């Protein structure tokens, strides 16, 4: 009973704190000075049509580098927690899993290639259309998940995942250093020619960096799925 009262008090207190935000804040009429500067300058500075991408990859590039590092740490944590040894499964036989249905197996064969291609398309066009490395990486992880579901006994190759993940991470930092040496600062996309706005090869190194982020995120999320699926050495 006491606990219910405490929970009620906590929720009510938070509600009282959030009330002005919910009812009194209203909707702003125009973006702030910083956002307006980004909106007007990003196409001219970097040749990026998608301004959110310009902010994620270059204006706030450090944030994204840190975010990818956090993602790596969480993936490493999941992988370390869920090995067979740590779970006390040791030498026990892996459980027999029911085989996948015919429909799933056939659809996986047809769809995996298309899904990977779609993911690559999303992150290659991140500077032109909605989407980018994170969304494309998730689509690639979904394609690999389909493979895991169709063959319950199989595992993603740990070596390939680790290689893709570490190489793309190193190349991401390398592109940042290239910006520091050839342009105005770390992660500056003007290290490569900007090109004409709206074409596929434009916006300097933004599409390259976002593609590397896509590969890294795809490998990390596939690693999380493979670890949670179980029976990993």
């Amino acid at each position: 009973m006491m606990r219910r009262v405490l929970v009620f008090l906590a929720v009510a207190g938070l509600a009282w704190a959030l009330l002005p935000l919910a009812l009194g804040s209203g909707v702003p009429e125009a973006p702030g000075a910083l956002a307006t500067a980004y909106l007007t300058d990003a196409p001219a500075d970097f040749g990026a049509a998608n301004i959110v991408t310009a902010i994620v990859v270059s204006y706030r590039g450090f944030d994204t580098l840190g975010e990818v590092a956090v993602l790596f740490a969480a993936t490493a944590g999941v992988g370390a927690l869920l090995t067979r040894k740590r779970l006390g499964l040791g030498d026990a036989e892996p459980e027999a899993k029911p085989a996948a249905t015919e429909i799933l197996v056939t659809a996986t064969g047809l769809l995996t290639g298309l899904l990977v291609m779609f993911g690559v398309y999303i992150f290659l066009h991140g500077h032109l259309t909605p989407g980018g490395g994170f969304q494309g990486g998730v689509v690639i992880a979904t394609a690999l998940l389909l493979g895991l579901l169709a063959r319950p006994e199989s595992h993603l190759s740990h070596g390939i995942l680790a290689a893709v993940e570490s190489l793309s991470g190193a190349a991401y930092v390398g592109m940042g250093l290239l910006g520091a040496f050839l342009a105005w600062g770390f992660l500056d996309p003007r290290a490569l020619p900007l090109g004409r706005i709206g074409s596929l090869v434009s916006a300097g190194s933004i599409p390259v960096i976002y593609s590397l982020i896509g590969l890294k995120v795809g490998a990390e999320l596939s690693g999380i799925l493979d670890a949670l699926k179980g029976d990993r050495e």
Partner: protein
Amino acid sequence: MLVDVALLVSGIVMIAAGIGAVLARSLLVSILLSGGVSLAASLVFLLMGAPDVAMTEAAIGSGLTTVVYLYALARARQPDEEDSDPLGNSVKGGR
């Protein structure tokens, strides 16, 4: 104005799904409802002019997160009913 009404309606759907996710006795229902919260949230993001965020939320929030929950649930040998194992006795003796 019409967009605001649509935003408010999706917000009400989202809150209803959220309350359902917290209240549901079955963990499976709860997981699916929390995927529904994310789906309604991605609709809100789309309506307010954030297609990048809407794509991410739809793919991650309602896609991969649900799969991660289901894998973890299967892995933990957790009975579907939330409070069917209050004393912590091992369920099938398989560990």
